[in-house]
């Protein structure tokens, strides 16, 4: 199959579309209410064009460049659509379609008790910022030089900052936005170091020319570039312990924006890492891969553990994003290790795993965030302990969220399993390909960690869906819930359908991303998934055929019931109250989210370290207790041990140098004199 062979200028069409959406949003500020959805509709159309351009470019397998314009001093801003950029354009665009349609209905509704829906000026701001956000992300992957990349990066950070802070009235959102903007600028600083080092070595800001000069980079400069890139892109990707902004910022934004931030924005950091490791800083030493694998394992396990402890729906999903970015980093580490070891065919296999998992995560994480937004719209709360019984009141939302939860738990034949299966196979190839025992052990430990996070993810999403949607409502707000508007359902349904199709059609996806892997690893490896009929009888390679699995499940599942029906005929079904030891059932009897994760909290307490306080009131005598107060808080360990000390040290240092600003003008004149003398001496 080949693409549409679109001309090079079409790569900018989605961006112009998003900018048109921004203009439409600005123009609608003082307009009629009927104009409200116009900006979102333009965004949807632009995202659809983005998908078409991206898929066409992947099928055509040709790199297209577009000359931009020259800024000054020979710095060019141009655009390049190669296979990697096309893939990331696809990852950016398809959740945007769903999020934009969803946003039409979402912004029409109120989300908190006592607050009204967003009115036109505020809504125009959100729609406009969303359009600018998508435009900057698309520009990021299309940029062919450092300048374009950094401008788009900064635009992405700023637009998302405005989306997180909203109208600035809410203290929690302000604090989240400030943490976010500080961390993202620290990250940008590191990225700047990395890129400028490369540019200075190559003598140009253009990516193609830097890639050409990558072979002659000095060893320490290569390592320094990788280190800075890891810290910079790692912060944006949410690697522990650089992720502290993620659980604060992602829940604070409007839900369709959270979906884009979690499903798409963090992937741009992976895009940057892939560019640096595989193209711009060339093959490096082995420790790069090992560091990425270890960082990935830590992020994955701790991310899902903290997600299990959260009662806020969206913060739990944000921690789950940390977990999946850890898994993607683990895969990237395997690919890096094999690539730096000069084993491109095995590296290609690992890259397939990374890219497929990245695409699938965009699908199901966006779906889950849209579902969380639907729950908040319907009930007014995000607290799991206040929900329940929503499956009977919001049946279609429940089905969509169930598909999302099953996908993220890596259950066959949905899409999450394909990515994890490929990752396990990559680990197997890593362990089997090497001559040193440490790498085999690393592969084994990586597999054990991946299995642990997979099983913990199953627990986490059983908890999320089971406590949130099943059984009885725990509060009146949950009992009064109703199904959300059609546009919100359509957005969720679109992503749920993507999850189903990406799961069954994984072979098609692999063929689609073949050119990306070929470009990165300089080796055209055939897609690794083989249907059962195609495997030769001699080589029993592991293979996965999702269509057969799905059909097999259906056929085999009917069998016991058919036998029972055949032997014993039809039986009836009565409805009656559940058995709770003879009592009348009350909503307080059902399990709570905190109780559900208690065994895991206990067993992993050496990692989580919850703070437990129990206060027993006995005013007259210790034998007559009048009340018991129980409090258990989970304060993340990186906050307690790393960031608190860091902040304390920073404030201590500030206090130390405060005497310098004594207010005495003679002292200030003295500083100016000293500085002047120093500058004259040094500049001589």
């Amino acid at each position: 199959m080949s693409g549409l062979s679109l001309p090079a200028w079409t790569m900018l069409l989605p961006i112009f579309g998003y900018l048109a959406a921004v203009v439409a949003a600005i123009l609608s500020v003082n307009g009629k209410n009927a104009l409200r959805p116009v900006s979102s509709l333009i965004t949807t159309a632009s995202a659809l064009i983005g998908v078409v351009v991206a898929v066409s470019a992947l099928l055509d397998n040709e790199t297209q460049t577009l000359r931009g314009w020259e800024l000054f001093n020979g710095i060019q801003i141009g655009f390049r659509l190669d296979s990697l950029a096309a893939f990331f354009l696809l990852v950016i665009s398809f959740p945007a379609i769903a999020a934009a349609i969803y946003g039409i209905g979402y912004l029409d509704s109120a989300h908190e008790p006592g607050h009204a829906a967003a009115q036109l000026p505020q809504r125009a701001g959100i729609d406009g910022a969303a359009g600018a956000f998508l435009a900057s992300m698309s520009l990021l992957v299309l940029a062919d030089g450092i300048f374009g990349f950094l401008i788009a990066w900064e635009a992405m950070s700023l637009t998302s900052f405005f989306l997180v802070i909203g109208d600035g009235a809410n203290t929690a959102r302000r604090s989240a936005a400030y943490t976010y903007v500080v961390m993202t600028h620290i990250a940008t600083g590191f990225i700047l170091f990395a890129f400028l080092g490369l540019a200075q070595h190559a003598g140009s800001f253009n990516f193609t020319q830097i890639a050409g000069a990558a072979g002659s980079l000095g060893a320490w400069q290569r390592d320094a570039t990788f280190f800075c890139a890891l810290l910079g892109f790692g912060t944006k990707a949410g690697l522990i312990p650089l992720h502290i902004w993620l659980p604060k910022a992602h829940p604070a934004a409007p839900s369709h924006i959270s979906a884009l931030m979690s499903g798409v924005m963090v992937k741009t950091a992976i895009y940057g890492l892939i560019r640096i490791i595989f193209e711009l800083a060339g093959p490096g030493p082995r420790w790069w891969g090992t560091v990425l694998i270890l960082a990935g394992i830590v992020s994955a396990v701790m991310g899902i553990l903290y997600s299990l402890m959260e009662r806020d729906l969206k913060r739990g999903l944000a921690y789950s994003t940390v977990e999946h970015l850890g898994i993607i980093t683990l895969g990237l580490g395997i690919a890096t290790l094999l690539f730096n070891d000069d084993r491109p065919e095995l590296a290609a296999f690992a890259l397939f795993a990374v890219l497929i998992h990245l695409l699938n995560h965009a699908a199901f994480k966006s779906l889950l965030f849209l579902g969380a937004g639907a729950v908040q719209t319907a009930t007014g709360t995000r607290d799991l302990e206040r929900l329940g019984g929503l499956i009977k009141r919001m049946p279609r939302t429940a089905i969509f969220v169930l598909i999302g939860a099953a996908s993220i738990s890596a259950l066959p034949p949905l899409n999450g399993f394909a990515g994890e299966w490929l990752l396990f196979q990559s680990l197997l190839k890593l362990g089997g390909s090497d001559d040193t025992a440490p790498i085999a052990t690393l592969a084994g430990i990586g597999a054990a960690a991946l299995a642990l996070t997979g099983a913990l993810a199953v627990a986490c999403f059983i908890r999320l869906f089971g406590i949130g949607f099943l059984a009885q409502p725990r509060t009146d707000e949950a009992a009064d819930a109703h199904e959300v508007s059609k546009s919100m359902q359509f957005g969720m349904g679109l992503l749920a359908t993507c999850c189903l199709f990406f799961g069954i059609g994984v072979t098609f996806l692999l063929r689609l991303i073949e050119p990306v892997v070929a470009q990165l690893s300089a080796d055209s490896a055939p897609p690794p998934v083989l249907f059962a009929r195609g495997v030769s009888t001699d080589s029993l390679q592991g293979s996965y055929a999702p269509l057969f699995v799905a059909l097999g499940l259906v056929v085999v599942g009917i069998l016991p019931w058919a036998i029972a029906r055949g032997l014993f005929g039809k039986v009836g079904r009565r409805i009656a109250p559940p058995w709770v030891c003879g009592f009348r059932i009350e909503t307080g009897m059902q399990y709570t989210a905190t109780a559900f994760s208690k065994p895991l909290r206990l067993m992993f307490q050496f990692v989580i370290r919850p703070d437990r306080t129990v206060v027993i009131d006995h005013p007259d005598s210790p034998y007559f207790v009048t009340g018991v107060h129980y409090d258990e808080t989970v304060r993340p360990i990186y906050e307690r041990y790393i960031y608190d000390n860091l902040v304390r040290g920073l404030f201590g240092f500030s206090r130390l140098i405060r005497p310098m600003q004594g207010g005495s003008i003679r002292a200030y004149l003295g500083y100016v004199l000293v500085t002047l003398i120093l500058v004259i001496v040094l500049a001589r």
Partner: protein
Amino acid sequence: MDTLLVPVQILLMLFFAPLVQGVIKTSKARWQMRHGPGVLQPYRDIAKLLSRESVQSDKASWIFTLAPVVYAAALMSAAVLIPTISERSAVTGIADAILFVALLALGRFALALAGLDTASNFGGMGSSREVTFSALIEPAIMLVIFAIALPIGSTNLTAMAGADIAAVAKILAFGALLIATITETGRVPIDNPDTHLELTMIHEGMILEYSGRPLGILHWATQVKQLAFLSLLAAIFIPWGMADAGDHSISALGVGLGAFTIKVVVLGLLLGVIETSVAKLRIFKAPDLIGFASVLGVLAVLASYVVER
């Protein structure tokens, strides 16, 4: 002929599973100086349940009705993948160890949701404990799979069945997988499958609200899961007697069937011995045993790597 082996395996798993359960229960009874209800009792129990009307909680939703279907489908599909009588059948191409583990997770997902759906506290407790223990044991299972798969470079179950790896690694991996079997089938010392007490309810807690035909199917599927684990142990660690790939003669298949029966019965008796000789662990001491299984798994990976070089 390879295709015919698939329905043969399905029927084999379906109709052997209650027999294996009966063997384990009768052996435990005899060791406890009781007579026991007989080896065929599970058949009678399932038949009784399949013919009864079911009662459903008025608080439950369609998840409760659908869960037994998904659970049975997932576990039956997992059981079909394991090579039992013959090394090769039509599904051998897709018989992957990781798919096996994931299908078990699919079944667990469905049942755990059903446990929460009933709005009773027993269901919630069962679901909570079930997902906790399975989360803890999955790394050990994955390490065992890797210990066998790393030297041969494939996670295909048939390839793993004939794997030629160091004896030390096999012993360590067998220990880890045995503990995993005990955990996944809910036997002493992790859970007591014979009672419905709160303290011992992991699996029983989740299915407490089920009755009649759905309960019969759930019990049947759980017994198939038990048989699947025992077949996995047999296929990987004692693969002798299986008919060769492509050999469809009645004698070879008959020998395979006989060997499979003996292996599974012996492993069942082993489970019965373990259940009779140790006491059930306190639930928050169980992670110590499961952690020990993970350690055995890591050692197996190392051993399979180091010893052969």
